[in-house]
């Protein structure tokens, strides 16, 4: 019966075939469109400058060389200094790790409080947090700069960590809150009856269940902080700049011959940590980004 019912579309095999081909072609064009830039970037970074000059843009490198990568890492010029990306890469590492850990921890505490300990005013705080997630950071730049000056953190890495922690709390809290509301409140009540305190409940019930959301939050925060440019360019000075700012300086510095292979290698190096995270933990990465957008 079902075969019969489904027969009308099947009775036009040519139409189906044409549609299928259309679909494949369309997907092929899409893939080309989306992947071509990445492909060209990788191959060009492995070519020598002479080979690039021969105009074989889309071809694989005839001779693979990592010279450009070496230069990008430790010799390329950002303005007057020629130390490559290395010092800035470490700046980003030193900046991202504490900022991620602190904001995740505070987010877990806050999320736990908001999700499980119902109290008056929770809604207001909730709105404030969402506001913090969506606000255009342009509005806070100048007062923040003044604040960092007052705290004596202007232009320093701890200053940048501070900024990233503050503006990360909104997202991390919401991540944990949305995860913790799904934990049955009976569990908490039972623990309370047994005399467990606030921390005890967090420690023995919530924390052991938190691994997935911790991974999502850490990945989200890491990606955000690593890829940040606005705070980096506004609140750092020579020597404390994160890798994104240095990358922009390397590529947009106008002195000397344009070394395309070095520029591309630098772009890859700067993107490598987040790309690795994506490849290794893609599922969590995607979950984080979609959770960050507030699902509909």
């Amino acid at each position, binding site marked *: 019966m079902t075969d019969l019912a489904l027969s009308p*579309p099947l009775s036009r095999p040519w139409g189906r075939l044409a*549609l299928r081909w259309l679909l494949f072609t369309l*997907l092929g064009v*899409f893939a080309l469109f*989306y*992947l071509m*830039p990445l492909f060209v*970037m990788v191959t060009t970074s492995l070519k020598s400058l002479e080979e690039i000059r021969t*105009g074989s*843009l889309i071809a694989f490198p005839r001779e693979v060389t990592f010279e450009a990568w070496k230069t990008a890492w430790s010799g390329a010029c950002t303005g007057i200094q020629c130390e490559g990306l290395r010092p800035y890469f*470490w700046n980003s*590492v*030193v900046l991202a*790790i*504490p900022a991620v850990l*602190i904001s995740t*921890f*505070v987010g877990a*505490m*806050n999320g736990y409080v*908001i999700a499980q*300990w119902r109290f008056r005013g929770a809604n207001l*705080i909730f709105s*404030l*947090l*969402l*506001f913090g997630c*969506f*606000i*255009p950071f*342009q*509005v*806070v*730049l*100048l007062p923040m700069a003044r*604040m960092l000056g007052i705290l004596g953190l202007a232009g320093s890495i*701890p200053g940048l960590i501070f900024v990233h*922690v*503050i503006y990360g709390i909104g997202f991390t*809290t919401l991540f944990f809150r949305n995860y913790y*509301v799904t934990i049955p409140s009976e569990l908490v009540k039972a623990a309370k009856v047994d005399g467990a305190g606030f*921390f005890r409940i967090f420690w023995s019930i919530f924390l052991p269940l938190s691994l997935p959301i911790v991974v999502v939050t850490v990945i989200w925060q890491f990606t955000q902080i690593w*890829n940040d440019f*606005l705070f980096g360019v506004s609140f750092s000075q020579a020597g404390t700049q994160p890798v994104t700012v240095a990358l*922009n300086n390397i*590529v*947009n510095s106008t002195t000397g011959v344009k070394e*395309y292979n070095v*520029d*591309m290698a630098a772009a890859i190096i*700067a*993107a490598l940590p987040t*790309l690795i995270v*994506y490849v290794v933990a893609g599922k969590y*990465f995607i979950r984080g*980004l*979609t959770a960050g*957008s*507030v699902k*509909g």
Partner: protein
Amino acid sequence: MSPILQGLITIIVGVGGCVGYFFASNWILDKVIFPARNDDHGRNVNRATMVRPWLFLFPAIFALGLYLVYPVIGSFYRSLFNRAGDEFIGLGNYTTMFGEEGFRTAFFNNMLWVLFVPAAATFFGLLVAQLTDKLKWGNIAKSLIFMPMAISFVGASLIWKFVYANDPDIGIINAVRDSMGLDPVDVLQLPFWNNFFIMFILVWIQTGFAMVILSAALRGIPEETVEAAIIDGANPFQVFFKIKVPQIMGTIVVVWTTITILTLKVFDIVYAMTGGNFDTEILPSYMMDFMFRDDGRATAVAFVIMIIVLPVMIWNIRQARKEMN
């Protein structure tokens, strides 16, 4: 001091400080202020329970208040002063700005961005989500299209800078033109259309985001509705536009608004591509031209951005709250 040591110290001070605060405040509350003993036992436990959430949320509220509420008000206040910040000029910064060619260009371009980027990203995302649905290797295609989301805006811009490069040895577009015997053209300097070449970078990045969310929504559609339409003789286009799209309309709107908010904030791309030259300025990059040079003007621009984002933001927040409650 070595950076690693510095980093370690920051971690210890930061995380230790937070843990310390939570533990110490909790301990003081339970043992000193409302000790659970003597005659007041029950009442004290209740009181402590009432105070506790506030105690624990205090750092976050304090931080958000100080660094969110204050800056918004502070920024607006600053925008009412002149360049040096010593003379109150009311809405002077705003009126000068509105009369300026540069601001009007930035504003107009920004409107183009808001119209084009969310629409294009959502459309492509939906298209790919639908095309790869139920396809065996669809997941591979999807994970590749999602990849640009992992790259910073600056990184992505630089990749495209090479695609658009004037030099046919390096720029894909001009390599293609070269092979057809055409002269190279710098697409970033084409009046008006250069905006679209820059916008396309953000579309390239955000398509993956739209695709993932819409793909999940498409999977959530009950099979029966689609089957029923097929039995009634609907063709694939009718199934898509009349059965599927209406059912995921809510998600489409959320994706659209989320990308809209993002679009209004992004300045990295224009900054890295043209630095705002060739009439490609948008408000966030226009603001950065004045940052730390004329703070009155910069905050005024920031406020215009804020006012444009606000309606979309409020809508999104209300939607999110509905979702979560």
